[in-house]
């Protein structure tokens, strides 16, 4: 099996498995006052400190959650509610059309049910949000509850300069949230240095467990809870701490961040070879997102393991099925909660037409990726594309 879908999820790191297994064998609620509770709390707090250190945050800025979707919902809704309560004229949310659905749908829910107004940021053809676009959208900022811009796009891998965006947001007095689910462990992410007010991260994209994530939230950022109860996590996220998951999350983040530079270089090399190999066999293939060698603020402008390609005249669905039958696993990168592939909102958001959006595939490399994986794809891609083109585009 050739797994080229690390942006969907990643294999659990052996260190993570060991640490979680050890913790799962222990009893103790981190909120209990006795020795078992204290031991659990100590373990959870060590994990909090470890995660904070890996991401340039203070331990008190780490709120453990159930994953990326929850963190995005908590940040968008919680900050919106808190900011509007402090000043009722702050009803506007500024965000981009290429955000993950966890942000987009939260924003649209607030617009539909809770009086929010949305200003959509202009996005460059690469998928990047520029400081200029954010400045223009914010205006004087007095009516803005929050802005949310993803650090790196989950489909096309484009990175934005969050430090520059945070500076613009703060000029207008607006808090900035970022979904950094794909960025952590892939590009340098320093929460404190970036200046962003809230940052979403999750475990299973970097070798950690599913169902474990965090929202990094500055001490001075106010955020209303979604989950009420025992008052854990600064009273912003109640619920018994899942200590084993938290340990796994912290170990994964630590290992991923520590090995980031070497891995990024290796994955970029593999990714470049993958793209060059596909281009050689399918000359009219189109690369979506930023150029492979794009540089932004001294770091990569594109996630090193991301290759997002459109194959004109072939449907992504058909390509995926044919590759799946040849044991090569990738993604069309489009939302399909209903099981029906819709043209990617990200590609449409950066100005691609519906056919280009529907003819795309996302290949994402990770820790376990090897030259053999790239070779496996290159062995089959030409006949697969030819076959899919014969089936054509079902709607055009």
């Amino acid at each position, binding site marked *: 099996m050739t797994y080229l879908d690390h942006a969907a999820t990643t294999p659990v790191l052996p260190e993570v498995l060991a640490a979680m297994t050890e913790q799962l064998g222990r009893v103790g609620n981190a909120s209990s006052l006795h020795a078992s509770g204290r031991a659990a709390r100590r373990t959870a707090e060590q994990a909090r400190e470890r995660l904070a250190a890996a991401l340039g945050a203070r331990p008190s800025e780490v709120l453990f959650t159930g994953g990326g979707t929850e963190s995005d919902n908590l940040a968008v809704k919680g900050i919106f509610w808190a900011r509007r309560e402090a000043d009722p004229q702050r009803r506007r949310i500024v965000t981009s059309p290429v955000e993950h659905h966890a942000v987009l749908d939260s924003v649209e829910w607030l617009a539909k049910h809770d009086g929010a107004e949305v200003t959509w940021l202009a996005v460059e053809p690469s998928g990047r949000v520029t400081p200029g676009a954010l400045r223009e959208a914010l205006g004087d900022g007095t009516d803005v509850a929050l802005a949310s811009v993803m650090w790196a796009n989950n489909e096309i891998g484009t990175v934005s300069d969050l430090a520059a965006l945070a500076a613009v947001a703060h000029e207008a007095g607006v808090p900035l949230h970022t979904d950094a689910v794909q960025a952590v462990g892939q590009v340098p992410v320093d929460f404190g240095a970036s200046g962003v007010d809230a940052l979403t991260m999750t475990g299973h994209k970097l070798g950690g467990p599913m169902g474990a994530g965090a929202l990094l939230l500055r001490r001075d950022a106010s955020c209303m809870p979604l989950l009420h109860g025992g008052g854990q996590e600064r009273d912003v996220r109640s619920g018994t701490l899942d200590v084993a998951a938290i340990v796994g999350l912290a170990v994964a983040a630590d290992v991923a961040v520590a090995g980031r530079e070497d891995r990024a270089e290796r994955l970029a090399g593999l990714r470049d070879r993958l793209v060059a190999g596909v281009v050689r066999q399918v000359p009219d293939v189109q690369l979506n997102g930023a150029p492979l060698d794009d540089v932004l603020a001294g770091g990569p402008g594109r996630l090193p393991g991301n290759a997002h390609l459109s194959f004109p005249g072939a449907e992504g669905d058909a390509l995926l099925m044919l590759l799946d*039958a040849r044991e090569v696993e990738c993604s069309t990168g489009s939302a399909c909660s*209903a*099981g*029906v*592939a819709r043209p990617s909102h990200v590609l449409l958001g950066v100005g691609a037409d519906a056919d280009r959006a529907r003819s795309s595939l996302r290949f994402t490399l990770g820790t376990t990726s090897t030259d053999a994986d790239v070779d496996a794809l290159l062995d089959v891609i030409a006949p697969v594309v030819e076959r899919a083109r014969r089936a054509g585009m*079902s*709607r055009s």
Partner: protein
Amino acid sequence: MRVLAAMSGGVDSAVAAALAVDAGHDVTGVHLALSPDRQTLRSGARGCCSVEDAHDARRVADELGIPFYVWDLAERFTADVVDDFVAEYAAGRTPNPCLRCNEKIKFSAVLDRARALGFDAVVTGHHARLADGVLRRSVDAAKDQSYVLAVLTPEQLAGAVFPLGGMTKERVRAIAAERGFAVATKADSHDICFIPDGDTRGFLTRRLGEQPGPLVDAATGETVGEHSGAYGFTVGQRRGLGVSVGDQRPRYVLGIEPVSRTVTIGTADLAGVSEVRTGAPTWTGAAPRLPLRAQVQLRAHGAPVPCAVDATGDGGLAIALDTEQRGVAPGQSAVLYLPDAERGDRVLGQGPVTR
């Protein structure tokens, strides 16, 4: 063979896919998303293409260990089946959307795409027998679906596999239960999947608007009532006419004239026909030599009627019925069978009823 199993989420297509796996085929499951406005669990409605049905189909595919994908054919389905359905009613005819779906979607759009992608055939859970290119009724007369497959050509049938034709629905459910499929006890689907509430007249009213017109009694030529849309009627219909004529005898719809929106009604003695005309026929095999003796079925759940079939001068069929029939509605298919008690009645083909 490499086959594509069309899996609706119902028990029939689940068992058909399972039997295809048992037969040693290389099976890939596909759920066809046909509705452009997919019903979710939250909205509660049930049709053949809700998200819940896709989930049910996926569950079975996962248990069978076969790949499973959803193909979005909503645009094709809307154009070729739903819009056609509305246009046919608007023209005063009574279409069969399941037949149209088999003709245009399952054994056209899907089969063509499957063949292009390297598959040899499409497997469905239809209740009909198909062997050596010969299409026959199911052994389960009550569940037989050969009527809605009669429109298929030899080319299309060559790419079709119907594993369920030789067994009863009861047996299908038993197989599903033995295998632990959650859909074993799932209710049978509605006749018209895109009208999940079953209110065809309401659906047509939303699409076509109110189009009031007269109800005319055939015997007297008098207008005996008003209706809000001729599309709400089918030739042969007795219930729901909303009129009471003096003699109190039951009235039937005899004809629908869409331009003047006139619906003609009459008593039973006027409602019978002894000859049916069709447009150009399609044949499931080589075109038979005419004239011939056969049986004809005039609607999806109608009884077969012995008849003599001959060609008309304009490329259609003239079908002389041995016994008069009521409710011969233009737009339905006249499906011709050669009776065969042993192997199952053989489907020769069909022609669209013109009058």
